[in-house]
């Protein structure tokens, strides 16, 4: 094997290693990203699987306990923006018929969280309840909306958090 071939083989090994890393990591950490409509269409298939779900917080559904930091709310499909192509195509659906899903979360409320806001939750569904470990809210304004605000639990690793309430 001459030098050129050696380097070709070496470079190939590195490229293959990077590709393998990407492949395995993608397989282990990827999650379906669905809108509420897509989720509702085949809810059973997504039971227990990692999921990212986009929806709108239903009016009057938010229950928040500031002592325990337990949050529960319903999400529903985000209606198409008025004037968009989808809005013209969409069939009118009575609000009561729109499928909803209960989301449970524990943590400090993100600043932008409110009823009627669009959110993205990450977690999985167990018995028709979405257990979210991340709650992302979207800013209502225009261009700045790209400054999403990740709140809640950071990714794995920090779960072994220590700390307790001491009296006095």
């Amino acid at each position, binding site marked *: 094997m001459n030098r050129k071939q050696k380097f070709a083989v070496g*470079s190939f090994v590195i490229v293959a290693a990077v590709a393998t890393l990407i492949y395995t990591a993608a397989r282990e950490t990827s999650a379906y990203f669905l809108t509420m409509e897509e989720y509702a269409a085949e809810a059973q298939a997504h039971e227990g699987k990692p999921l990212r779900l986009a929806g709108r917080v239903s009016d009057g559904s938010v229950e928040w306990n*500031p002592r325990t930091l337990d949050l529960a709310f319903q999400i529903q499909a985000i209606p198409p923006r008025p004037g968009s192509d989808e809005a013209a195509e969409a069939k009118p659906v009575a609000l009561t018929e729109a499928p909803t899903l209960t989301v449970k979360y524990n943590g400090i*409320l993100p*600043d932008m969280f409110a009823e009627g806001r669009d959110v993205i939750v990450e977690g999985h569904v167990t018995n028709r309840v979405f257990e979210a470990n991340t709650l992302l809210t979207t800013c209502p304004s225009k261009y700045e909306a*790209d400054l999403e605000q990740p709140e809640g639990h*950071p*990714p794995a690793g920090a779960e072994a958090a220590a*700390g307790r309430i001491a009296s006095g």
Partner: protein
Amino acid sequence: MSEIGRLAIVLGFIVAIWGAAASLLGALRRDKSLVTSGTHAAYAFSALTGIAVLALLQLLLARDFNVEYVASYSSSTLPLWYTIAALWGGMKGSLLWWTFILAVCNAVVQLQNRRKNRDQMPYVTATMLVTGAFFLSLLVFITDPFERLPFTPTEGSDLNPLLQNYWMTIHPPSLYIGFVSTTVPFAFALAALATGKLGDAWIRTTRRWALFSWFFLSLGNIFGAAWAYVVLGWGGYWAWDPVENAAFMPWLTSSAYLHSVMIQEKKDMLKVWNMVLVILTFALTIFGTFLTRSGVISSVHSFTQSGLGPFFLIFLGAILVISLALLFWRLPLLKSKNELESVFSREATFLLNNLLFVGIAFTVFWGTVFPVLSEWVRGVKITVGPPFFNQVNAPLGLALMFLMGVGPIIAWRRASWSSLKRAFAVPVIIGIGTGVIALVLGAGNFYAIVAFSISAFALATVLTEFWKGMRVRQTMMGEAPWVALSRLIGKNHRRYGGYVVHVAMVMIFIGIVASSIFKIELQTGVEVGKSIEIGGYTVRFDGIEDESTPHVEIRKAKLAVFEDGEQLGYVYPEKRFYKKPQQPTTEVAIWSTLGSDLYTVLGTYDPDSKVGVFQIFLNPMISWMWIGGFVMFFGTVICMWPSYAERTSEATSRVPAGSRTAS
């Protein structure tokens, strides 16, 4: 004023098109007057975009809410500093700001090359003006920043409170300067390909520009991380958000280029690869601009479609097709006479380092576009989150750090076993020793131990280089240690400046590793007067103070910080309720030391039960990231400093030019 601004961008667009066409035609027909006209157009373009920026600034300062942009991104109570920052706070303004920086870079390039690179300059001018014309065309035809409303709102809807932060006023300009200045090396690369003058000239001319753009990309990324850290309130600084990735990718390819270009200078190798990196870096900056403005990629961004996406994609496609076609056409001229001799050589280390940089860039790219790709290919959107990026990039980052230790002291061409032993014995022992100490001190995490070990190794090799160089000067010249060190750096500032940047990278790396692996987090409700314990700290909740200004209402928690029973001081995390976009924001408070950051967030406060809910993070060694940022700043300045030889050659080259005009 809006008419003046509007006129300026329309004229700027026309002038840019003319300048690009005149430069190209002039170069092809060898018509000097056309080329000169192109140069003049470049200056006019700079002046016109400058006028447009001033016009928008004036409208903002005059608080003319009849202008849609002013009404959307400022208000009558917005402080002056943030009113200026509103120039780049909105999409339209940011595009104008982008064009303006490009125009300034272009003018500087024209001035620098008045008497140099005359064959290449028409192509450089054309490339930069076409890019400028593209950005201005968006403003002229699609989103007019000077658009007036049919009515005048009494009040503006204000700048997003998240952007009303110190870091946010300097982060976007830095990043834009970094992004935009990559156009200069790209333009010279295209000019080199077009003219066939593929020697060292274009690399020497753009060396400092490449470093300059890398410098600002680095600053932009660090400022952005600092902004996320103090503003977003989730205890971290980097979330692998597409917007962050957009700024990180060109930094990676630019870093790769800064290394591989040394191989071209010294060994006349990797010429094609360097071209590819320059083209890739520029394409990634355009891709990044596309990402942050199109709403195509990020889930959260899908609410912010601006309709600019297709235009960016077409421009990006055109850039790649034209530049790769030129590259392919010139491939025969780019053949290298030399080739790699041994795997154990500095050349090979640099090659490996490049593969890793590009590998990381590809990983980030892949993770960012994965949702879109999966939707195209399989019809479902699949996303990957931070764990994906961390899982792939952690081993690649470690390997890169290891190479950073190897690269500076391994021999060129071919390193013998005995030379390897001599050079690496001490650093390897230091590295392993550090790993053992970390293990003994209780760092029970495999990644952390390996990372500390490799960091110590890399640091040791760099410091050995300084030490050896200094000793040589001390014995040869009889200089005092500090004199020897400063002269050593002064004589070879590119090399030693680079080493200083390496030291900075070790600091940043350690900060990242320690803060992500050993982070502690807790969320809890606590009554006034009670305490929370975290790590070695105790935090006592001393009460709530409310403040109100016309702009914002502030609710402030007073937290006393104790360590080992001794009071260190107070921190005041806040909740703010902005009045104009009715929006609450979180203001974190941080007790920062070299060892760790105590990062406190006020969640809610209930006046009846006197219970405040807090989220508290203990982030070990995170300060080293910011310190590393400062060190990187100095290191890069040392690199960019003109050397003695350059200063004198500039001076002498001016003399004959001046005497010619005199005679």
